[in-house]
């Protein structure tokens, strides 16, 4: 089995998939770092002093003012209220939510990429892991070895898990290294508040705890990893089902993008919460963002994703083992 996984890794590495993904991530990180840097610069200009408390207070006031305007929807309103409460909490406890530094950048970047960017990167690796063998015809050589089919697919899946892991870590390391160039590499132990939960319109702070940033990062990246794994598994299934790699990618892309769009507008479509793409924003639960549909929790999302992942895996294996290769 180990040598089979080694084979699959060989193919992924030789196809330069991981390198391509790392390249894309590096470019994007550089881009975001720059925009973040410009943002910081502009804030410096505008306020004269960089005291984050002033900024946060001003944000609160701005949001309060937005609340009073009549044109905004109820969902938006309650979300604003939650954010206000949370910001107020940061102020009251003297915790800077935007502590500058590379770890904070990595945290912010991961938060923003969990539901679209990172899944896309995973897709680059996962989409052709099976279908490429079919289009190139190498599957015929692969399946005429004295190795059972499930083992071959399993080796591919394990290779995928490994690639997903290294991509997530690369993602973290690259965003840390590159942004640190501008923001400095400190801030690992800055306190971060987590454990907000949203019950109705109230921000529940019962379970709130303050943890050092490195712990928060570990939690956040493990959730990012989980999402990446599930997205990878579903893409993997599509790769088994659909011979044509671009078609499989298209299906997955449509699902992910519709998920990103739906998340912001499905509040009233209750059963959408069972769709995997609505549940991708796991880090939002850590930072206390309001979920796209009321009543969704971290546990709920984890279970929904796990069920989708398992189902995809079962389908992949069932199909792959029985499939006739013409």
């Amino acid at each position, binding site marked *: 089995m180990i040598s089979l996984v080694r084979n699959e890794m060989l193919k992924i*590495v030789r196809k330069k998939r991981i390198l391509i993904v790392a390249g894309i991530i590096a470019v994007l990180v550089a881009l975001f770092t720059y925009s973040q840097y410009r943002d910081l610069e502009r804030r410096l200009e505008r306020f004269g002093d960089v005291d984050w408390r*002033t900024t946060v207070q001003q944000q609160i*006031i701005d949001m309060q003012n937005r609340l009073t305007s009549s044109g905004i929807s109820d969902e938006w309103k309650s979300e604003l209220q939650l954010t206000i409460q949370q910001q107020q909490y940061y102020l009251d406890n003297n915790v800077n939510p935007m502590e500058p530094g590379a770890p904070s950048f990595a945290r912010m970047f991961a938060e923003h990429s969990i539901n679209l960017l990172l899944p896309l990167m995973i897709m680059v690796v996962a989409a052709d892991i099976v279908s490429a063998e079919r289009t190139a015809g190498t599957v015929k050589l692969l399946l005429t070895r004295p190795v059972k089919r499930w083992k071959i697919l399993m080796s591919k899946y394990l290779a995928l898990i490994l690639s997903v892991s290294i991509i997530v870590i690369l993602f973290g390391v690259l965003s840390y290294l590159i942004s640190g160039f501008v923001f400095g590499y400190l801030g690992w132990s800055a306190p971060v508040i987590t454990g907000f939960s949203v019950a109705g319109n109230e921000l529940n702070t019962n379970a709130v705890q303050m943890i050092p940033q490195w712990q928060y990062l570990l939690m956040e990246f493990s959730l990012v990893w989980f999402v990446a794994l599930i997205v990878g598994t579903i893409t993997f299934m599509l790769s088994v089902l659909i011979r044509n790699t671009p078609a499989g990618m298209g299906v997955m892309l449509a699902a992910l993008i519709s998920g990103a769009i739906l998340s912001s507008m499905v509040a009233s479509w209750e059963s959408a919460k069972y769709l995997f793409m609505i549940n991708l924003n796991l880090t939002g639960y850590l930072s206390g963002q309001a979920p796209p549909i009321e009543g969704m929790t971290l546990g709920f999302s984890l279970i929904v994703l796990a069920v989708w992942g398992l189902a995809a895996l079962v389908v992949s294996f069932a199909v792959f083992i029985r499939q006739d290769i013409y």
Partner: protein
Amino acid sequence: MKKYSVGFTLFLSILSLGLMLVGFGWTIQNQFLNNGTPSAMEQAKPVEDKTTNDQGSKVIVALGDSLTRGMGDDTGKGYIGYLVDELGDKSKEKITIHNYGVNGYRSIQLLEQLRQVEIQRKIQSADYILITIGGNDLFQSGETMDLDEKKIAQAKAGYLKNLDSILKEVRTLNESAIIFHIGLYNPFIDLNDSELTTKIVRDWNYDTNALLDQKEKAVYVPTFDLFQLSVKDYLYTDNFHPNAEGYKLIAERVSSLITW
């Protein structure tokens, strides 16, 4: 390099997988099995801080309602914005403005806002404190006015009590800052019952003025006269908030009172 890249990647990815599995297990444990112990919280209460980040410049804190926010001014400046312009022309002193106005605020809400740490910090460092409050208490935060005498009396009593508390609160936070309270104008002066509405606003302003007179370094800034004659020219299309010109008038008046 090429020869070992696979082994190397394999090794790194296994490490990564291990790390992620540990992290994930820990996250599950932390998020689901460890609830209800906000232990670390208490220790992290505010460590008192350096208050004076606004050193070397004059600090103005603006509190209050939509007038402070600048509602009705198309340029979004409001009287605070024009005031900064005016003061900038007048002196070379660096001015820092903190505008905490919130549309629709009544006196009771302002009193609540004063409990916020950050607001308190800013008030502590202020040289001048500008307040517009009361309009929403009197006009029911809307474009109408209930002419029932009893209700007005009730509203006024509550307002005066809150204002008193506000002024006291501000004073305990900052002994030296000068407080300006911007009085009300009568937006309904061109409408029916103008006599009655004018009387009500005048009384309101009078009582406000009387309260401020009891406080040290507190100045009542009248605006009634500014809008008295050609109220239409100075009001926004909602016939309630001032427009840019109206705000400029208020700003001019306030700026003439500020000296350093």
